[in-house]
């Protein structure tokens, strides 16, 4: 059987395509199949799946929904609506601008929403400066940051997350006393 697209090579890939409820069969050669799969990937990429996930199970109140509709990132101008459409954020600042909505989304994607992995060299040095006094201040900010996250978690009634953060704060405070 020859390829349906180029009509030159042997068809090696057999596809069933459903467009608008109509089913059609396609028999393609290796090259055309590759091209076709690239097209399909562009048409229906991860962003579509993700946009679905952003909507899925989102139990925001009407007030929150209205707020989400007008929310935008002041650094890059991306709106939450843009993010819902393209499935990509605009810049690092978007994570702060949309923190309220992204927390639960990250949790749905990863099953967790607190980073415990490595941090950039510059970053750890910035929060752990050399002098003891500066070190204490840096750690305090750190705990405050965690406490702010805890507050946010409680507000959105994410108690599992709140418990993780509470433990992290305890741990940080213990460290602070220890040193």
């Amino acid at each position, binding site marked *: 059987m020859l390829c349906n697209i*180029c009509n*030159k*090579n*042997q068809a*090696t890939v057999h596809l069933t395509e459903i467009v608008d409820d109509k089913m059609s069969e396609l028999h393609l*050669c*290796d*090259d055309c199949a590759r091209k076709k*799969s*690239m097209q399909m*990937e*562009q048409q229906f990429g*991860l*962003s579509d799946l*993700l946009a679905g996930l952003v909507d899925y199970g989102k139990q925001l109140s009407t007030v929150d929904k209205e707020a989400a509709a007008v929310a935008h990132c002041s*650094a*890059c101008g*991306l709106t939450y609506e843009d993010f819902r459409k*393209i*499935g*990509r*954020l*605009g*810049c*690092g600042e978007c*994570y*702060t601008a949309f923190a309220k909505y*992204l927390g639960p*989304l*990250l949790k749905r*994607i*990863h*099953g*967790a*929403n*607190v*980073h*415990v*992995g*490595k*941090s*950039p*060299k*510059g*970053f750890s040095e910035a*929060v752990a400066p050399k002098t003891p006094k500066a070190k204490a201040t840096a750690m305090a900010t*750190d705990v405050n*940051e*965690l406490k702010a*996250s805890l507050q946010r978690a409680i507000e959105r009634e994410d108690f599992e997350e709140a418990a993780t953060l509470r433990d992290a704060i305890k741990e940080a405070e213990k460290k602070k006393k220890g040193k």
Partner: protein
Amino acid sequence: MKFEDLLNRTASWLKGSGPNSDIVISSRIRLARNLEKFPFPHWAKKPDSEQVLALAAAAFEKTPELKDGIFLRLDDFDNVDKQFLVERHLMSNEHAIRSNQKALFINPDENVAIMVNEEDHLRIQVMESGFDLDMTWRIMDSIDNRLSEVLTYAFKREWGYLTACPTNTGTGMRGSIMLHLPALVMTRQINRVLEAIAKLSFTTRGLYGEGTQASGNFFQISNQVSLGSKEEEILGNIKGVIKQIIEQEEKARESLMAEHREMLEDRIWRSYGTLKNAHIISSNETVELLSMLRLGSDLNIVANVERSLINELFILTQPSHLQKLENKKLSANERDVKRAQIIRERIGG
């Protein structure tokens, strides 16, 4: 090193050595990193993207681990050259399709490749031969640390490394193992294995990476989740799963050798015979036959063909490589002839 030199070189991850290299082709880790204060590539305007390229190039130059590499601006590359880089597993298809303000850095061993302005500002990849995520991570970690001394990454304590797509947020890390599992396929156990993997939130892809179907006997398995665990834990989970798959494949190979030795040897020798003698061969048939030859070499049935040569042929027989070797555009039919010729030349003898 120059771009033109790549064609006559073999990437170090293809040498076919390292732990469990009879079953594991390669171990690969990639990190997604972005620069603070710059919009992500899809949302950035040209001047911002140009600045990211300049900052990245300067940072790579200062990094001892990235010595003597090449920094390729892809804007003016033609399709054959870009696909050539995709075929060598140095960059994604996505990076080849839209190439304005995009670049690729490659080190001389081709075990490190960094895409600049793909989905994220930096996509750093380290790839090693065999099953060795520990060493792969050590190399990656030190490159990442060095770069973070020069570049200010977008990072938030609570959520880690900030990425364009929230599926990569946190560690920004994806670890992938490329496996050759002919015995599990032949004994029809592969679906059971793949189903179990999917349940553990790992993904399976094909030989040619992102977006490709698992084809023939090659499977690339990677973690899906990047937030909430330490890098070492994520890699530890992958190691645990891969170890079990390796065991299953070993058992399947043993039982094939014990119960169907003649059938297996026949298939392997016939594959070798076709590869040595064919004058026209498609890419699908090539992958299928090379897979059998590799199994023959791994089981010491075919003793005189090096594993590294077989690995290399998987790369050399792809469309853009064939066209670069012939130094002109080739139709699909012409490629099938050229492909057969390349294979005969290398394993004929």
